[in-house]
């Protein structure tokens, strides 16, 4: 059974945020305006997070870090969901069942990475914007929590395709939109359980680290730090 994971090389990443909008487009994230943005109600499943410098002579911005859902192996959000609307499947993807979620937002508060989003209102696409909605991804209703699904629909499509052609799925056939878009190939995606995969090798390289590692959430999105 594959264990899907991602590495993000912060040395290659230029913080262009191509991943951010690629995700918004792929996953039907609704457009929001200044009012929503300032109230923390915009949707960025993939978000660019600036870390301000600390210490004696701080760099004003120490680091810029693209943050999808980290798909923890030990996800704090899944534990707390009262209705099992969020779950970790056998391939390690932390998914969300939009049709079951009751909108209590316990998972959103439990996630130490603030990677979950809530539909405060019914998402709107002013005419004719809804024409660009991706038919593979459902539109969420108001009152439910949503999050990065690692473009799970792409996995389903790739799997269907492979099944139709009666062959196993090939590496690289399933890639989330952010990884596909990344202009600098800073993001790699693949099977962490396969020691030969690129992503697996990178995840075990010297530069690899996990975000808030001491929390023990065991993220499957692994960063490669800047520097030698």
């Amino acid at each position, binding site marked *: 059974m594959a264990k899907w994971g991602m590495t993000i*090389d912060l*040395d*290659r*990443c*230029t*913080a262009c*945020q*191509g991943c*951010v*909008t*690629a995700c*918004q*487009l*792929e996953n*039907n994230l609704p*457009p929001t*305006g*200044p009012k929503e*943005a*300032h109230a923390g109600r*915009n949707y960025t499943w993939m*978000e*660019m997070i*600036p870390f301000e*410098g600390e210490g004696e002579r701080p*760099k*004003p*911005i120490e680091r*810029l870090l693209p943050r999808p859902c980290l798909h923890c192996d030990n996800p704090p959000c899944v534990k707390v969901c009262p209705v099992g609307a969020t*779950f970790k*499947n056998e391939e390690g993807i932390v*998914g969300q*069942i*939009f*049709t079951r979620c009751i909108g209590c937002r316990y998972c959103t508060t439990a996630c130490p990475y603030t990677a979950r989003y809530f539909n405060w209102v019914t998402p709107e*696409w002013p*005419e*004719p*914007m*809804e*024409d*660009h*909605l*991706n*038919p593979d*991804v*459902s*539109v*969420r*209703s108001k009152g439910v929590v949503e999050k990065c*699904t690692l473009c*799970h*629909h792409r996995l*389903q499509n790739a799997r269907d395709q492979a099944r139709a052609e009666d062959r196993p799925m090939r590496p690289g056939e399933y890639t989330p939109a952010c990884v*596909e*878009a990344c*202009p*600098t*190939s800073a993001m790699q995606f693949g099977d962490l359980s396969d020691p030969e995969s690129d992503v697996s090798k990178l995840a075990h390289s010297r530069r690899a680290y996990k975000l808030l590692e001491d929390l023990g959430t065991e993220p499957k999105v692994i960063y490669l730090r800047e520097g*030698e």
Partner: protein
Amino acid sequence: MKDWLDLNRREFLVALGAAYGAAATGLAAPRSRFLEYAGDDEAPRERFINAMCPMCPGGCGLKVRVVHGCAVGLRGNEDHPINRGGLCSRASAVLQDVYNPDRLTKPLKCVGGRGSGKWEEIDWDTALGVITDKLSTLREQGKPHAACAVMGRDRGLTRAAWQRFMRAYGSPNMVDLHPEDNMGVLPAVLATHGARQRLGYDLAETSYVLSFSSGWLDEHWSMEQAARGFAEFRRGRPGFRPKWIHVEPRHSLTATKADEWIPIRPGTEGTLALGIAHVMIREGLYDRRFVAEHGSGFDDWTDRDGVSRTGFKRMVLQDFAPAKVQTVTGVPEGAVFRLAREFSTNRPALALGSDGGGCGAAATYDRMAIHCLNALVGSIDVPGGVTLFRDLSVLQADFDVDDVASRGLLSPPLDGPAQKRRLSDNAADLLIDSLASSKPYPTEALFLVDADPVFSLAEGPRFGAAMAAVPLVVSMSAYHNDTNRHADLILPQLHALNRWDFNTGHTLKGHPVVTVSNPVMKAPPDLLSPYDTIRRIAAGLGDPVASALPWEDGQQAVDAVCRELFAGGKGAAFGPANEESWAQLLESRGWRAPFSENFDDFKRDVLAGGGWTDPIYFHREWDRVFRSPSGKFAFSSAYLAKSFEAIPEATESAVLARRCLPICRTDQRRHDQAYPLELYVYSLPNLASVASPNLPWLNDIAGAYVFEKWRTWVEIHPETAEHLGITKHDQAEVRTARGRLVLPVKIFAGVMPEVIAIPFGLGRKEGGRWCKGIGENPAVLVDAQADPLTGTALWTQTRASVRRV
């Protein structure tokens, strides 16, 4: 079954939620069957169509995912040499532009006087009729030059068509509003190489980069390539991680990703470059061989009259000692020494000057000074150095014009006399005076082609006022914008993804690239493409103007482009990513596209691949790279010397000779009691030079790297703020000699203490729902100075004061 058909898309997608939910838990996957019912059954369910990203001048290749006639997704074209399958943030937002609710859909006629903001929908025939009437009258009166077109960010076919149209019609007044986008460092290259081409940078092979306010990762003309170049520079060579030093008044995105940020006073980058040159020359660290073989004007020289002239070396040694540089730039003397030594010992090293779009321009002399550093380390046209783009032109072939036109073309251009812009073909900033003063002659018809000068020029409001003197103003724009208020007619635009188009561009390594773009979906009714618009205007004027645009539609024009490329006999349709083997294959086949024996095959391949490229670049082609008479790199610009000769100025020749050298600031900026701070206006990444500002996703992310969005803020250094008694949630009034703005404060250690920084990109008075009235436009504060060599406005000379309100 019927029920499914009756679902609208939205309901369908909501219903899909149920299916996804089920599928996600592994219960069932009936998804694909649902999809079958979800639209008209005629079109194939899913197609990927080649297109070109219209968001910035980079010209990336897109594969647009079309499902049931709607564009619903994007992928980068993996074979496209510019983006190699990548998509930057702006590319993914393109569908928000295509399906934007605020796009104009009908031609609009101003009723109730200009500036009233009242518009009436009219039909295309009436709108174009007004224009052709005016234009034919002008031609009949023998003053075709009284028509002026200001070009915005549209490129490719639109630009080519307008060039041909204006030439055939007989007006020299086609002015670029964003010369930075299209030229960048070109003026500096013209001065030093004598070549009319931009620079490429071979970052993948470079060992050290010194970038001067380059906006490399903030607002490069090709974000995609800049990002990819950076990544290759950083990690392309296992075991070797080169150093990137960034010099800028503000801690920009580029500074964040660089290894070191060196703060510098705005507009003094050239001075620092020459300070570095000083150390290199004094310590003998420069590449003597390159300078001797390929440099001119380095040492003192003697002009034709036998008078000795100062060379680059003497000037630099005399005027740019590090101690002095420190007083001008604020960069510590020690840092100047260190940078010089690092730069000259880590070869190949690169010095990057500003090469981006956005706002304002960098001073040409500064750019020349920075580029001289490349020459001093011999990083010109070598691997890991600077490359010069290989020439590429399509649909530019000359054609004969009639007498009226040729007389018109000889009229003095409206955008300033040549002595004000020796290194630039045109300067929109200089157009304002001509419009306002009706000199050298009154402008009778002004066309704004996707251009919003009132917003984007420092003197935008004055441009708007000057437009009042023009009897006919036509704006061709997809949205309302600040300039439209002053127009008589607005002609809406068909989105680039709805039409045939092409774009010419280059990879950063200098390979020419032509991208072709297919219409990805059915065009909305009642909209004309920019080409159809200009062609119908030309047709209304009859021959010979009409015959300048011989192609019936965009598709035919693209056909003509392919024909030219095929006839050129070089390069090939986009192919596999491995350029090396591709190049070898081409070489062995005698530079011919290997799979295209005839035109039809060639065209088919180009359309299927998404474009054409010539992936060959030979280094050290000195004849091509240095086109000045001496065939060398001109530390003292031979091009400028010639220009001063041809278009004389009332100054003594010794001064003029000095003006051929990169003369950068040597005086310390005097203290100003009323305006003690310097204002640094910078481009907001993703927003300042994007083709359409009305995109919520881009507004959302534009300031994300400093925790800002959807507003314009002023950055103040913590010490300065403390001194002024300003704290983080305050509003501050920024005052300059030109104007004032009240802005929210951001206390930011990433500006120099004596500098305040304001982002440019927001503050539109007109436009769609996601940009109108949001933020402020710092252009109103800018005390712009014209660059003495290009005439474009420099935004870096403004002084300001701040107080809490």
